[in-house]
């Protein structure tokens, strides 16, 4: 258990509606100081609403919220001095240079980080004297992070920091967040990329339709560590799907177009024993045999009710893509 004073963020029973739409339906989140916490969920799940309540942009309908010990609804200037915010959509004056922009925002804070340090930290040192209008999208996003870091905040909000990035830009952004964690900052990031949450976060909360549906470390969330193991192999030519009682029921598996069979095994040791026993008895090879724990993506999709149609057309996450079963 963590005591209240160790909490950077404490949310209890938070609710928020927009007209008849309940965007957030009573969530509880506790984030310790120094923790990197990812709020993972599809578009429209309530991620941004929750974060914007913490940032002071939205008022809540119900529940208790404390950010660094302060209620953000008060609009406290003292609180804003300790927090850095990277919003989902960016806006920076296009006619100032990178270092002028960081200097402008540094000036708002009582104990800013040196401007050059901040620019180096986000890797924009070569663009120091470039006007914002001439930066690429990825460079502007780095500048967003630089602005959020200008005041040397204790707590950083990153709302979908890498949406629209190419894979190498995402790696670069991840390195920045890792560096921040190493500096002891508390980071709350929202994302709909599984691999991002997996790589960056100490704790992941999956939010779906305004409710937290799972909470835990990326390696154990949703029973990942104890969940079913997935077995996959190519069915030898001319063989029917074997019936292995208690392991594999031919009517419950799906044959993929390329001849692969996938099934979930509650007891992987026994399943493999039965399966390989069957193959040896038949004198066939199990080509492409794979045994996998459920990925964070599998857990996420199971929890949020299948692939989100809203995410179509967005850049493919850098992680591996798998065919889904229905």
């Amino acid at each position, binding site marked *: 258990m963590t005591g209240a004073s160790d909490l950077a963020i404490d949310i209890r029973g938070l609710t928020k509606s927009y007209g008849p739409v309940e965007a957030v339906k009573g969530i509880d989140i506790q984030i310790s100081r120094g923790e990197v916490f990812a709020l993972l969920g599809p578009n429209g799940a309530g991620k941004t609403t929750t974060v914007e309540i913490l940032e002071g942009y939205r008022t809540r309908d119900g529940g208790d919220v404390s950010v660094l010990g302060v209620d953000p609804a008060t609009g406290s*200037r003292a609180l804003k001095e300790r927090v850095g915010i990277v919003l989902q959509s960016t806006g*920076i004056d296009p006619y100032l240079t990178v270092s002028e922009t960081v200097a402008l925002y540094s000036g*708002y*804070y009582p104990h800013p980080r040196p401007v050059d340090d901040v620019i180096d930290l986000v890797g924009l040192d070569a663009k120091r004297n470039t006007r914002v209008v001439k930066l690429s999208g990825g460079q502007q996003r780095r500048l967003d992070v630089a602005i959020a870091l200008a005041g040397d905040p204790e707590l950083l909000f990153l709302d979908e920091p890498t949406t629209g990035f190419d894979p190498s830009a995402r790696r670069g952004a991840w390195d920045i967040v890792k560096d921040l964690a190493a500096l002891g900052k508390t980071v709350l990031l929202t994302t709909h990329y599984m691999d991002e949450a997996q790589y960056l976060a100490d704790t992941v909360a999956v939010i779906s339709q305004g409710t937290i549906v799972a909470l835990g470390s990326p390696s154990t969330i949703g029973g990942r560590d104890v969940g079913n193991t997935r077995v996959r192999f190519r069915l030898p030519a001319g063989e029917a799907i074997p019936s292995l009682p208690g392991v594999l029921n031919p009517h419950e598996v799906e044959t993929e177009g390329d001849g692969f069979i996938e099934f979930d095994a509650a007891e992987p040791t026994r399943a493999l024993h039965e399966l390989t026993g069957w193959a040896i008895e038949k004198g066939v090879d199990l080509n492409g045999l794979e045994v996998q724990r459920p990925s964070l993506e599998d857990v996420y999709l199971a929890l949020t009710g299948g692939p989100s149609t809203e995410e179509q057309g967005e850049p493919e996450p850098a992680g591996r893509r798998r065919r889904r079963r229905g």
Partner: protein
Amino acid sequence: MNVPELTLRQVRFTNKAFWRNPASAFFTFAFPLMFLVIFTSLLGSGTVPIAGKDIKLASYYVAVMGAFAVITACYTNIAMSVTFQRDSGVLKRTKGTPLPGPAYLTARVIHAMLIAFLLVIITATFGKLFYSADLPTGFSLFEFLAMLFIGAASFCALGLAITGFIPNADAAPAVVNASILPALFLSGVFIPIGDNAPEWIKLIGRIFPVKHFADGMQAAFLGTPFYWRDVVVVALWGAVGLLIAARKFSWEPRK
């Protein structure tokens, strides 16, 4: 840094960005000066009867273009630039920092007023050099400065107020021009309105703040009567603008 220091610092950054933006530098700064040269060159030799006196149009335009410059720098410039900043998310970002919102807006207003004063000085110098215009002195200078200051502040307030009615940045030029151009034409800014203008036009001029402001600004240059009630009407419009801005102003893009 305390709030006044933060505000002045913000004025300096606003100024830097202003001059680097070709659109603001041209439309706000060069535009009124261009109109001044065009109108005085084309129409400068004619006269218009005002308050029983025949006023040379060259002098008329020197005086009224000063008023136009103030309206452009304060009303049009503030309405457009603040809407663009709102829609691009600059305002929302600023709202998340410790800089108080009023300090940010005050900095923009101070900057717009400084640009307006600079334009008035250039206009008056132009008039003095090329058309031997009379420059205000003594008490008429005080009256002139009062009108200039109150007018600039009021048009800034109205510029902030109108942003509450602009749905997005694309609509900003249309809404701003639709709201100010008819008033400029009906208040004698582009086409002089003399004693013999139609009554309905004079009536419209008495309702909206532009004619009152232009009359007050012209008085010291043209030797026409100065009425403090013009200052009061403009100030009332400014106060209404401030009230509307306080209720309707948005720090986030309107959806």
